């Protein structure tokens, strides 16, 4: 008995030793149950495609709360988030403010992450087996295009940046110490990527693939980056003092290529300007607005699609009025409102400085794009008010109330300070629901007295639902404007007129020459330059262009220094008229007064030449001392 037990014990000891050493390897090799290995990913076309989809996420769309429109004269961002510092030039390498915000379209960190993924895709894609239903060439084209797009954003934001083409490993620390390439090297690199993309990408994609890059997208990118680099900023050497940000070459050639690239898109036959003419200005405006809101149409070249879940677009909540429980984030400035033409092509005068007053509704008889872009006092917003606001505005589609109104038979008093001398005006009445004194979430009210409409589907209940509106990276109108601008710079004015008239005709606006005449302007290069720049501002408002445009044209010192202004609206009852609650806009009952107010106490807009190029964060330069900072940002 004893011996048997002893043997068993011995067996146990031995067995344990043997089994533990042998069991060890398989037991401890745990493969994550929710991940694929890199080898698996690049041996399967479907998984590779899924990886390519990831790179799209690094192409920053502009449908964000702290959108770049608020960093120029287009708009004001109500809630700061570092935007105030940008407009007041209070940024430096140690304090990036909004430049380090996820909404900044050229944030360094995100951009280089996207570039790494594109580089990885390009280095692996040739080994992916050909599989029916997947087009490896197209995937490669997408990677080229996405990389070019991200580099374009970097160049627009920072100037020349390091061109990284390698997928760095953890130990390549020395190699990572890359200096900045100059803008010429950057643009050449981008153009080469675009060429590859154009070769590989299809002309169009199926509805299910809407949002993927096409040949047209790559061609449009070429036109955009060429026009950017052809612009005065890169040929200046007095303000733009950093060598990496200067272009030493033939400016004319750049303009010529930019125009050619734009024309290639226009003439490709894939896209068409949508005719918005529809009898009334309102109907025309609505068609124009639809160009932006539609998931797809003939004018769109490259878009980011959204849905109720997955990738969502919350712009209604973020930019819509507080009277709908929205946040009024990015609101149009008085300057932008002023820039929209009257229906006959002339410009509204005497309404752009603090204290300028109108007693006739300045929002009547404006061009269609104004109505598609701006929400103003008394305009129909597009959705019934939420229950708590409905008693104050029972109109079926809601009217914006950004003013202060006299009402008969109420106790409450309106008290407003009139610019410019702050004299106080008091009368019995109501503060509009969408003002900063309104009854609903007043801290979210618009300071400027306007709301952004262009990117917003006003029929959506923004507080609870995202909107199914895409972000449009490229649409055909921009190509016409590129061709027009390049033609003006090449002093081929008649060509420019053709491209501009195409855009004006489709919304029923008088042609360029007539308009110039009506404004009392001559038909020469200087006036045409002004004209095309103005056209670009109103056509492309809120589409992420103005920030870059004022810099590349070097008009930022004048534009960005202008004091931030908004409008104050109040309505007094005409003699003999009465209006009980609720208030409804009525030209018949009310005399309305519109006064430009100064909002410098909110944001004291300024300009410093250092702001031509964004700061690279200090820590990045400390990590990589061969990287030069942009002038003035130290």
């Amino acid at each position, binding site marked *: 008995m004893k011996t048997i037990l002893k043997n068993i014990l011995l067996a146990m000891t031995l067995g344990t030793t043997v089994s533990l050493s042998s069991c060890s390897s398989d037991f*401890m*090799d745990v493969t994550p149950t929710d991940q694929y290995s890199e080898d698996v990913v690049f041996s399967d076309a479907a998984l590779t495609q899924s990886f390519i989809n990831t790179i799209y996420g690094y192409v920053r769309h502009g449908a964000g709360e702290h959108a770049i429109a608020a960093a120029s004269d287009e708009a004001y961002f109500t809630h700061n988030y570092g935007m105030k510092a940008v407009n007041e030039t209070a940024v430096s390498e140690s304090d990036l403010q909004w430049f380090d915000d996820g909404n900044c379209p050229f944030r360094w960190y995100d951009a280089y992450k996207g570039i790494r993924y594109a580089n990885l895709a390009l280095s692996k894609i040739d080994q992916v087996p050909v599989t029916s239903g997947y087009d490896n060439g197209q995937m490669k084209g997408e990677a080229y295009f996405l990389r070019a797009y991200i580099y374009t954003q970097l160049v627009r934001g920072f100037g020349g940046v390091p061109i990284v083409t390698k997928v760095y490993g953890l130990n390549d620390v020395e190699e990572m110490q*890359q200096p900045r390439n100059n803008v010429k090297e950057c643009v050449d690199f981008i153009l080469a990527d675009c060429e590859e993309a154009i070769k590989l990408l299809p002309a169009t994609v199926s509805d299910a693939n809407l949002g993927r890059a096409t040949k047209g997208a790559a061609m449009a990118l070429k036109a955009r980056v060429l026009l950017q680099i052809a612009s005065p900023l890169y040929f200046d050497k007095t303000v733009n003092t950093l060598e990496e940000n200067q272009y030493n070459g033939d400016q004319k050639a750049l303009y010529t290529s930019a125009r050619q690239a734009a024309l290639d898109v226009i003439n490709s036959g894939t896209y068409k300007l949508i005719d918005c003419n529809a009898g009334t200005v309102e109907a025309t405006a609505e068609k124009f607005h639809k160009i932006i809101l539609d998931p797809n149409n003939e004018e769109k070249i490259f878009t980011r699609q959204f849905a109720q879940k997955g990738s969502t677009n919350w712009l209604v909540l973020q930019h819509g009025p507080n009277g709908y429980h929205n946040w009024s984030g990015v609101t149009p400035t008085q300057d932008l409102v002023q820039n929209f033409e009257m229906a006959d092509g002339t410009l509204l005068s005497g309404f752009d400085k603090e204290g300028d007053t109108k007693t006739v509704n300045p929002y009547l008889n404006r061009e269609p794009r104004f109505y598609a872009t701006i929400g103003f006092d008394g305009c129909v917003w597009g959705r019934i008010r939420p229950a708590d606001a409905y008693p104050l505005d029972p109109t079926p589609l809601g009217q914006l109330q950004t003013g202060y109104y006299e009402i008969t038979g109420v106790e409450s008093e309106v008290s407003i300070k009139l610019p410019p001398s702050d004299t106080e005006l008091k009368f019995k009445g109501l503060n509009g629901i969408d003002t900063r004194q309104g009854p609903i979430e007043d801290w979210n009210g618009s300071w400027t007295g306007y709301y952004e409409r262009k990117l917003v589907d006003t029929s959506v209940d923004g507080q609870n639902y995202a909107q199914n509106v895409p972000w449009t990276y490229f649409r055909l109108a921009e190509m016409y404007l590129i061709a027009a601008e390049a033609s003006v710079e090449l002093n081929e004015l008649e060509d420019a007129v053709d491209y501009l008239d195409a855009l004006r005709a489709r919304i029923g606006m008088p042609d360029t020459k007539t308009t110039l005449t009506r404004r009392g302007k001559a038909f020469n290069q200087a006036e045409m330059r002004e004209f095309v720049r103005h056209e670009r501002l109103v056509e492309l408002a809120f589409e992420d262009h103005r920030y870059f445009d004022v810099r590349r044209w070097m008009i930022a010192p004048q534009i960005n220094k202008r004091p931030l202004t908004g409008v104050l609206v109040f309505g007094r009852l005409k003699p003999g008229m009465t209006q009980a609650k609720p208030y409804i806009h009525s030209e018949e009952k009310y005399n309305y007064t519109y006064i430009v107010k100064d909002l410098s106490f909110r944001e004291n807009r300024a300009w410093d030449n250092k702001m031509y190029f964004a700061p690279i964060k200090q820590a990045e330069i400390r990590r990589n001392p061969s990287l030069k900072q942009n002038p003035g940002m130290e």
Partner: protein
Amino acid sequence: MKHLLFQKKRHGLPGCILCMLFMFLISTAAAFAQNITVKGKVVDANGEALIGVNVSVKGTTIGTISDLDGNYTLQVPNTKSVIAFSFIGFQSAEVPVNNQTTINQTLKEDTQNLDEVVVVGYGVQKKVTVTGSVASVSGEMLKASPTTNLTNGMIGRMPGVIGFSRADEPGGGGTTIRIRGTNTLGSKDPLIVIDGVPSRTGGLNRLNPNEIESMSVLKDAAAAIYGSRAANGVILITTKRGKEGKPTVSFSGNYGFSNPIRLPEMADAFEYATMMNEISPNAKPYSDEDLQLFKDGSDPWGHPNTDWYDAAIKPSSPMYRSDVGVNGGSDKFKYYLNLAANGEDGIYKNSANRYDQYSMRANLDAKVSNYVDISFGTLARMEYRQYPTKSAGSVFSALRRSKPTLPAFWPSGEAGPDIEYGDNPVVTGTDATGYDRQKDYYIQNTLKVNVDIPWVQGLRLTGSASYDKYFKMRKKFDKPYYLYSWDGGDDHVVVPGKRGYATPQLTQEHTDQTAWLLSALADYNRTFGDHTVGVTVGMEAEEKQQDFLGAFRKYFLSDKIDEMNAGGMTDLTNNGSSWKERRKNYFGRVSYNYLERYLLEFVWRVDGSYRFPKEKRYGFFPGVSAAWRVSEEEFWKENMNFVEYFKLRGSVSQTGNDALLDADGNYDQSVQYLNTFGFTDSYIFGTTENTRLYPTRTPNPNITWERGTTYNLGFDFKFLNSKLTWESDLFYHKRTHMLISRNASLPEISGITLPRENLGEMENKGFETMIGYSDKIGDFEYDLSVNGTYAINKILFWDETPGIPEYKKSTDRPVGSALYYVSDGVFNDQAEIDGYPHWSGAVPGDIKFKDINNDGKINADDQMRREKNAEPRFVGGFNVNLRYKNWDMMALFQGALGAETYIQTWSGTVGNYLKDFYDKRWTAENPTVEHPRAYERENQYWISNRNTYFIRSCDYVRLKNLEVGYNFTVPALKTAGISALRMYVNASNIFTIDKLKVADPEADDKDITSYPQRRVVNFGVSLTF
């Protein structure tokens, strides 16, 4: 047979261990004859029978326990045997049998308590022979804290245990425990071992203190036997087991009330309106008339003055706990069974927040033969958490922000408006918005077999297996609800407004977790004359695996049916995920002592972790400790006999860590050496969601164990017939190869997503001490003890951006110390602004920031890193236990020093201000030099840029716990079969002395939006039959 059993490698490790268990069971067959029967009675010095005394034959495992009358019967092998009597609290005695058949024994009370034992890793040790730093507390002490979270009663009771209780929501809450402070930049949590099983899901918080026999905290080499996961210390929990004797039924019932101990005092309507006028001097929103109406309250419709906390929070909320247990058994079979239920209500009025828990624990011990015993333990517990659909953070944020100028309820009774998102907290704390219900089920089983090898005296083999299941079901139903607005008319009509989601929506989630652990242990303990040797060797293998499944639908037609199939088909979602982890370890201990005077111990562990590549997978973690009982030496006894006990202890040990934390501080299961792609949020092409795969990280093929080295030096003293005890430890912990990322030094142009690397070093050092005094004066017995722990840590090296100035560096500073501008008072006038470097646009009443680098401008280079942070440096406790006749009293004072917090509320048009701020603020009429002007959101640079003005000290002392009890000794009870009856009152968080005032000093709450700490007053009765 050997061949058959071990050739099947495919079974892997679990199979191997099962084989071993099987072997143990086979060996139980042995049985040996016995030939002499000895009987007797064991009594104390007063002649009272002693129940449960261990009576054994020395040098064998033959033994029994004295019965209710103190009698025992023992089969003794032969007349040369020696019978040993041992009983906790009494001196042991040994009597040779010779020819006696009746041996009566009187045991003397042991004032030195030398046989006191403590639970250590994989065993139990006599306290006198412990060489490491071990603190322990009995379940009895923990029971005196009337709290649903076990951890809330731990701080201040044991030296070396530091902690802070951040929030106390029923169902959540709990105290963050740090053994000797912070040792690493990674995971800082200690290892929790419950009945021998490490890291059991469910952890410490919800354990029933009634079921706990003891809790031990291992802090130095003593912890090293748990190796890899012990770097942050180990907490061992042992649950109660059956005691021999007739069945004893016990019952305890508790009913108590809780209320928040500190809610911030906010500005009232007049004060708020005054500040609103101050922040918009250009467009004052309130006239003098308005201010007057807010002040006099004569217009409750138009000018209300609301105290939101009053409106939403109950004066007190009930809670209860009851336990019914039975235990008893024979020398062959013992049982312990306890059923428990407890629950508590949230603090909101009509609260949708509630926590309930039901549990059962059964611990069984069977002696199969003289050489084999089996013990089995099982726990079944359900935790039922009910929450409103809005989180506590959202409710308390709305409470803190809601404007006093708006009504919580209209005078006519309807709920008033929201601050935003429908967040009127008098509604969102209730079930009007739907519900969020979570049920957690735990089933934890442990089976253990001990085999004493009869032919090798002192050798015991133990095999154990545990199998735990955990399920979690969550159901969250959001439905629309109504808030009311007044149209402003004189007839006071209020209009309902639908808030929340337009249609009801339902989320359901299901988690299923399985964990098993197998272990085998050989233990050899034997005394040879004056030499005692102990050897323990063991191994463990374990696996934990979890599956998750979730589903979501919206567009329910009605809120009457809250089942998934009643939801709409549009935009429905489902998702699932899983993970698995595996570990394998070998460990052991060798101990030796000579006359229990010179003690030496060596522990080691080899750990394997699935997180590391094959060649880096195993880590070896040794620990060595030694102790010298100086008081046993002749020279001491002759010269220093007033100190009857003095022991010196010292240890050096290494421990490891493989736990990773993600950026949000959550546990991260990822395997960092693999080059893998994971899923991220989808991307829309067309109208459909497309999956996206991304490289989760650039792999680190070299990743391996994080290592901690602990040096410990301690001593234990007993004076004055052991009335006065003093123990102290000095410690130094150095952590190397920390598992962190190299974010700061790798250029971002690389685009690399960094893996964890074995980077960085830090140290943590300090001391802990405990002094106790106990005595009695007549019938008055008292027991006082003070303990304290001081720990300070410092990052010695890690990845920091090159070239940053010294004053901004985190290296050489404690973990978690943040950057702040340094405030230097307030600008009183324009002249002062002009004469001082300032932020552009500064106006009088703004905070001055110091120009730290003297470059004439204020920018990010003027931020300085603090030396302190939100974790206390020193934690102390003062325990008082008093007994007088039938009365007893227990009190715990707890205090902490050295932590600080950042208190700054989001205020202005978006929310109310603290009353404290109103009282102190700068105004043009009343300029002070200390405090800034009224601010609007983050528009002021001194709000959006964190600065030292808002930092406040969190030092405090509080009476954490008090219990007073009475034991009834009425003879009538005995006749009714009740052997003991006790009634008591206990309370927690009775009072606090601190400087913070506006928030709780234990909370880390910059915006004062977390669930507050609560005071509990509880009444209880316990009965034993």
